[in-house]
């Protein structure tokens, strides 16, 4: 019953949007190269089902690897900036500048530097686009830790590592997961950016590109849907992890 109440509304919402869309295309009489209708998508999915699975997996694993690197590096950077004022002051402007550069302009540069290393390039872009929120949230979480929280352990002679492990880290987990929800979407965008801007025949981005080249518009729309689906799955995996590791921060009383 509870499960139904959680799952039914979004499913109904999706269904309603689909129906409206179908109706709109039908009423306006759009040809499918202008706007494909949901009913055009299923044949496209079915026709390319193995490709969707293979390319979807390509996109997925590169996104997850890029995100994983972003988590490791972002947390590390956040720790450095969270514990040292000097390094925070030194690195913050650099980071902000780095983050401000549109990644679409970085893609060709990376593709040139590491020419032919498609997996590496794609993972790198996914990583570069997604570590920033994690680094910022961890550094803010650590630097705003109230001194008393540190002191309850420090007064007992606990090491900095123990304090980090027992207090600072768990206390920043809610912020960390907030950032991770942003990062997971960003990493996904990064992967697709590489796949589409510098196509190398793999990933959903490449499938999208081939749809474009062959003027297979239903395929292009189908790819968009597959991307949305993967995005939702990744996002909710993060939400589930958040429940497990930072569920205590949810005071809504569930």
């Amino acid at each position, binding site marked *: 019953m509870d499960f139904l109440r959680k799952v039914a509304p979004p499913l109904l919402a999706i269904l309603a949007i689909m129906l409206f869309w179908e109706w709109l295309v039908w009423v306006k009489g759009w040809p499918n190269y202008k706007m494909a209708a949901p009913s055009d998508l299923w044949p496209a999915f079915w026709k390319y089902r193995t490709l969707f699975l293979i390319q979807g997996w390509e996109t997925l694993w590169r996104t997850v690897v890029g995100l994983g690197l972003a988590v490791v590096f972002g947390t590390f950077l956040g720790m450095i900036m969270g514990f040292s004022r000097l390094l925070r002051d030194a690195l913050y402007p650099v980071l902000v500048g780095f983050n401000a550069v549109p990644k679409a302009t970085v893609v060709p540069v990376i593709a040139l530097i590491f020419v032919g290393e498609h997996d590496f390039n794609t993972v790198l872009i996914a990583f570069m686009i997604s570590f920033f929120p994690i680094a910022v949230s961890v550094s803010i979480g650590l630097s705003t830790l109230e001194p*008393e929280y540190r002191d309850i352990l420090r007064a007992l002679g606990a090491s900095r590592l123990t304090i980090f492990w027992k207090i600072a880290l768990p206390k920043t987990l809610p912020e960390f997961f907030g950032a991770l929800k942003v990062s997971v979407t960003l990493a996904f965008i990064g992967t697709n950016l590489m796949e589409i801007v510098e196509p190398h025949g793999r990933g959903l981005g490449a499938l999208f590109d081939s749809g474009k080249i062959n003027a297979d518009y239903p395929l292009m729309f189908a790819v968009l849907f597959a991307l949305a689906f993967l995005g939702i799955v990744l996002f909710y995996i993060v939400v589930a992890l958040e429940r497990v590791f930072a569920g205590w921060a949810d005071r809504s009383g569930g």
Partner: protein
Amino acid sequence: MGDLVELRAVTHAYRTKAGPLPVLDDLSLTIPEGKFCAVVGPSGCGKSTLTRLIAGLMMPDRGEVFLHGEKVKSPRKTVGMAFQNPVLLEWRTILENVMLPLEIVAPSMPRSQRETRARDLLALVGLAGFETKRPSQLSGGMRQRASLCRSIVHKPEVLIMDEPFGALDAFTREDLWQLMHRLRAEEPFTALLITHDLRESVYLADEVIVLSDRPARVQYRMAIDAPAPRPISMLYDPDSVAKLAILREQIEIAQGRSGEVH
């Protein structure tokens, strides 16, 4: 019994942008083992600084701090601390919060033993049945009880409290005063209590120390000899009332307002 805590001519200044800010000036005080010492003084005179020096969280510019005759150079496991903010960890249950110091101080102690110790203390302060609750599910008074449990769970020699009851309403505060006496009867420790409440100092302490305004020195000391089971009504005894009047006067002197007309 000797002195458990001893400060010898402690002088300390904070380095601020506007130059050094002298906070403690040639301050000496001792707390005999097993005694309860309350420290009162004007706001900002350096009371919290004093607690941090005794806990070894900071080193004084000059002078020395001794615990059990040993010079304090860094934090040590035989100290317990409680603050105005109960600082309970929201991701831990109340029981796990109370067990935290044991994880640091006695990492080899079996979990079951830690748990038993924590449960016993929680029962002692009237929190039996709340072991698995989260801190946010407790009232302010209950949180401060749990915080007190945590500060003595590892049987510290000295318990340092910085205005632990400052944020509580008057009735809850009196409850906790009485609890403090019960705890001391069950778990002997030496205590240093920073407070703004003169009644609290008289009700709880064996000795009350009044600090002068910043930079703080010991301005006045008063022994409170009332015998062990102290009822709250003790505060209305003529003797206590007279003591409170003296302390109030001393605070006014410390604030530099003794000449003012009331």
